[in-house]
């Protein structure tokens, strides 16, 4: 068997698609459909370093054998800590009581970020990025619900814009919100922010069931009104819908409904992340096969309306070593001044044995711990054995470091891997304009299973692949 130790740089994959093989080399920017004989000849040519007496195949072999033709494999961050974006959590509090939300905080313990602390964090970020010569910087707001602490949002938007302009740069602002703010605030967001990720799980029956106010009233009316207003604004609107076992079969209809009623730039369907509250009300994540199948059908609906379907882990344009802020040197500032690598709750990291605190906002600046930064940078796909032979590894990079932590060997795929591999394959075939093949493949569960469940995708392991 050809081992990764013998071929540590192997980034050339072969995945069965019905009677063909998808030859996929993302770092070489190559995707091709070949038959088994051609795949074996390519493998043998690469192993022997010998040409193939068949010109089109030999062209592929030459390209794959050439380091000069390939991107360098993504590598973890090194050197100075320069955040690609600053994450601000104005508050952990929220005005909704979503049935599945693991962030729920009792109202009496809501902490709102101190304005001086917010100022210090923004000033530090603009200074660091300015010294590094970055012209364009980003601030992302997470929660809780950021607009439950709108003074922090107002301050930091104006401060960052003012400071960035002084340095000759610009700032992009992105917010993840439940959309239940006032109409005036909604119009403000449409004017001032660049990207708005609005949680809307579907029509009223779905949304109100999932996302009530604490008194039990549904929040659909407010969220849908915001979605309508934001549809008319200049900010990019992304609708984000949480998908459960109850709603997964409705994804294509929900996608169509979104397109009929709003004008989002994209729609993101995310499978439910189980939490204590979701278990209490017996909301379950969708079956991964059903999710992938229905996501792809929904994607076709969205694409037919010019709307981008988003399943971030299957972004084939991405080349990365980490899926999320952790490991990218993102600095996320909590209301209490903790600076961390992740916006999830500290108790959730700790449950996985992780400490993702990077430092604190103190004495007018951000004080980072070098060892904590180094530990966060170690959270990357190079250190995930499961991903070593997977064709998705540079796209999904192993997913969330907190919520996706399978410890198995290469190929021991779990539910997240299954849906990610199916959707990624579809995205590659779509990029090749192989729409009919993708659809035919998707209709044959056994064929999809052959593609998704093979333990190694490496071309060099082809002979051992059943």
């Amino acid at each position: 068997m050809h081992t990764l130790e013998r071929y540590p740089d192997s980034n050339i994959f072969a995945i069965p698609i019905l009677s063909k093989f998808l030859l996929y080399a993302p770092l070489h920017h190559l995707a091709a459909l070949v038959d088994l004989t051609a795949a074996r000849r390519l493998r043998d040519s690469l192993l022997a370093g010998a040409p193939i007496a068949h010109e089109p195949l030999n062209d592929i072999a030459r390209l794959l054998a050439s380091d000069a033709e390939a991107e360098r494999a993504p590598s973890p961050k090194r050197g100075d800590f320069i955040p690609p974006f600053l994450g601000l959590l104005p508050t952990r509090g929220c005005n909704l009581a979503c049935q599945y939300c693991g962030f729920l905080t009792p109202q009496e313990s809501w902490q709102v970020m101190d304005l001086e602390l917010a100022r210090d964090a923004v000033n530090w970020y603009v200074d660091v990025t300015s010294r590094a010569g970055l012209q364009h910087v980003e601030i992302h707001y997470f929660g809780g619900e950021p607009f439950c602490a709108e003074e922090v949002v107002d301050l930091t938007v104006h401060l960052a814009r003012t400071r960035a302009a002084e340095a000759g740069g610009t700032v992009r602002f992105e917010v993840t919100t439940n959309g239940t703010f006032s109409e005036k605030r909604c119009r403000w967001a449409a004017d001032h922010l660049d990207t708005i990720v609005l949680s809307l799980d579907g029509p009223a029956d779905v949304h109100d069931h999932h996302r009530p106010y604490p008194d039990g009233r549904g929040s659909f009316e407010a969220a849908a009104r915001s979605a309508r207003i934001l549809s008319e604004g200049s900010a990019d609107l992304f609708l984000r819908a949480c998908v459960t076992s109850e709603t997964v079969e409705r994804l294509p209809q929900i996608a169509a409904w979104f397109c009929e009623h709003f004008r989002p730039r994209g729609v993101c369907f995310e499978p439910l992340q189980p939490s204590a509250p979701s278990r209490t009300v017996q909301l379950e994540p969708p079956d991964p096969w059903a999710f992938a199948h229905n996501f792809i059908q929904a994607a076709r609906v969205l694409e037919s309306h010019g709307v981008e379907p988003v399943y971030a882990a299957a972004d084939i344009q991405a080349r990365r070593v980490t899926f999320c802020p952790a490991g990218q040197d993102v600095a996320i500032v909590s209301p209490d001044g903790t600076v961390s690598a992740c916006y999830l709750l500290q108790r959730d990291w700790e449950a996985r044995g992780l400490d993702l605190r990077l430092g604190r906002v103190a004495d007018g600046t951000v004080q980072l711990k070098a060892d904590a930064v180094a530990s966060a940078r170690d959270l990357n796909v190079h250190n995930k054995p499961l991903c070593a032979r997977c064709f998705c590894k540079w796209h999904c990079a192993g997913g969330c470091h907190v919520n996706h932590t399978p410890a198995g060997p290469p190929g021991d795929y779990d539910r997240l891997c299954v849906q990610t591999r199916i959707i990624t394959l579809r995205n590659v075939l779509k990029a090749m304009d192989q729409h009919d093949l993708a659809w035919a493949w998707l209709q044959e569960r056994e064929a999809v299973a052959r593609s998704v469940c093979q333990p190694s995708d490496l071309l060099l392991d082809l002979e051992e692949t059943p």
Partner: protein
Amino acid sequence: MNGTLIYRCTPSIAWVRDASQTLAVNEETGQSWTLRGVEAVVWDLLTAGYAYHRIVTLLALIFSLSAAEAEQTLASLLRRWQETDLVRVSEEAKDGESDHQCSV
């Protein structure tokens, strides 16, 4: 003064804003204003409904001003806007201590 001063955007004023400026137009007279920098920030906070003292606090933090400087900046701006009928001020009777409040 025993009441609360309420600064309100003149009803016939419409405005549009982007990342760098706000353009305000009096739809009755055609007079227009281009607001940038501190003026745009104050207009934004004023129309968001912040109270006078909160605008002072936010201005001080955004532009690294002392509270007195921020208050002076705001007072001067509101006076000028009042003179050009960009905002109108009224006094509302209120029990207790007097205050300035901006609202729209």
